[in-house]
């Protein structure tokens, strides 16, 4: 049991997620209604199947919402403030890596990300961090460009590596 205050308890998490699945169901139903959900000359149309699947998810979501949220409320902790912080510290830099890779190319972005995530956030000593970051980027480069022959975006490093 963590003593850290709760951001979200289990009951509200259940309610929140059943609302999300219900919203997905509504989106599926709306998308299906844009097509034809009934019959055409060539049989059931494109919306026929998703429409029915959407209705099933919606019904199941309502059952979950009522049951977990109100009839038999789920109890206990879900995400504490400490957990949320740890998850954000992992998630946000990873999103940064994805966005950064669009400009820097994957290899350079990965090396920078690993320095940040292992050295700065993970507080691993810097020479070990550098060794891991460089080692991983070079190993990935060799694996993808030469063994699998599957070129990944290289960004500004591209012309540089092309010369080598």
């Amino acid at each position, binding site marked *: 049991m963590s003593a850290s205050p709760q951001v979200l308890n289990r009951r509200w998490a259940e309610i929140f997620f059943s609302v999300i699945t219900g919203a997905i169901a509504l989106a599926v139903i709306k998308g*299906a209604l844009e097509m034809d959900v009934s*019959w055409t000359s060539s049989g059931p149309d494109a919306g026929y199947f998703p429409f029915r699947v959407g209705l099933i998810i919606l019904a199941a979501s309502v059952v979950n919402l009522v049951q977990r949220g109100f009839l038999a409320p789920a109890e206990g902790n879900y995400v504490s403030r400490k957990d949320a912080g740890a998850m954000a510290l992992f998630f946000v830099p990873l999103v940064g890596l994805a966005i950064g890779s669009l400009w820097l190319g994957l290899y350079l972005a990965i090396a920078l990300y690993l320095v940040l995530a292992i050295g700065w956030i993970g507080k691993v000593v810097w020479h070990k961090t550098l060794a891991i970051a460089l080692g991983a980027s070079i190993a990935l480069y060799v694996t993808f460009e030469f063994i699998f022959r599957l070129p990944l975006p290289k960004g500004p490093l591209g012309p540089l590596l092309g010369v080598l």
Partner: protein
Amino acid sequence: MIENFTNLFIGFGIALTPYHIALMFAGVAFGLVVGVLPGLGAPNGVSLLLPLTFAMDPVAAIILLTSIYWGALIGGSITSILFNIPGEPSSVATTFDGYPMARQGKATEALTLAFLSAGFAALVGVLLVTTLAKSVTQFALLFSPIEYFAVFMLAFASFVAFGGGSPVKTVVSIGLGLSFATVGMDTISGSVRLTYDVPDLIKGISFLVVVIGFYGIGELLETMQEPLAAKPVATRLDWSAMVRTAREWPRYWVTLIRGTLVGCWMGIAPGGPTAASFMSYGIAKRFTPGNKPFGKGVPEGVIAPETADHSAGTSAMLPMLALGLPSSATAAVLLGGLMIWGLTPGPMLFKERPDFVWGLIASMYLSNVAAVILALASVPLFARVMSVPFTIIGPLIGVVCIISAWTVSGSSFDLLLLFIFGILGFFMKTLNYPIAPMILAMVLGDRSEDAFRQSMLLSQGSLTIFFERPLSATISILTLIFLAMPIVSLLRHRFTKKAID
């Protein structure tokens, strides 16, 4: 029968090239690492490497990926026994008695029993696949769209009935998987649907991105929430204890054979390794004579789940190849791979690509033996891998997820989807929405829909068509029974509670 074994020898001819053998060992080694690492398991390992095999020959690709599967299954048992952390959902039951054994200083015995039982059961599973291949494909030839849809529904219903979690949540998972599969081009009419005017959605949602998001990002987020406190027990392997245990091992033949049979049954009928291992453990607990203290370190408690887990894993390849019906999440990912390589599972696959089918079956004999040998040799090494702090492993796994999602189709939109499905996966995992049925539904989505629409076309929209032909009627009635089971047990529960009050 004879024909199957002739084919098997041709298969060995294909599988036994130096290149393929090297792939087997590489796959098993990678699988062991994946199985041992927290936050990774067989479905992740296979889906992370799947994009890399697009350029490979299908035979080589399937050998590599299935070898990862066998390696990961065994790797999952190592951490279950040494650290009480199941690397795989299907090795949860192994922790019940494996970890207590290790705590009592009998880690070597527990590991030896686990590996030998796993190897034995896996080989029985492959043998079953070999002998039944011909008859199952002939049976599959009887299938029309009506039977296919009925059997897909049976697979979904068995998750609702035996999945162990909340039946309503299982229905949500299946529905989400089916919906994700419908996004993009409709295969029958060619119209574009559920894209909400996002051009990137026209090509559909790749199930690989979903799998990597769920099992990769989602699982990492979950691990962040409760940092693993690995309390390793002494992991020095004692060779004389290993030999002694191996000598005693045949004495448990009843548990061995029973567990293997449970696994084979659950592998071929859609149940999967996880359900199989729990069921086998339950049966062993109930029927082992002498009132043994299960849960406190009984050898039978290790043998029973391990045999069922591995025989279910290998025998699941049969319905996957012959019917296109995967019975585990990993098999579903492999099936997706098959389609990406341009192969259509089903009886025709055995006719058109015997080299692929029999090369795979032959390789399963070898790679399972390789997995046991490599596992025995590398236990001390993996004990050390486990001690690498998560602050280093976590970001590295994150990097692998990003690269894998990128290699699926080289689109940055997939990276956005990866994060969305990662968050969705976190909620589903922590709120006990089962993920395996969702992956299964996603992989089977297009084919279920096609089968359903073709059936409806034949019947002019009447659902009774699923009950008209004897084969589909049998399957459909079984489906209805499975779906009714949670309701019946709920009512009975209510009733007995009232009676007590």
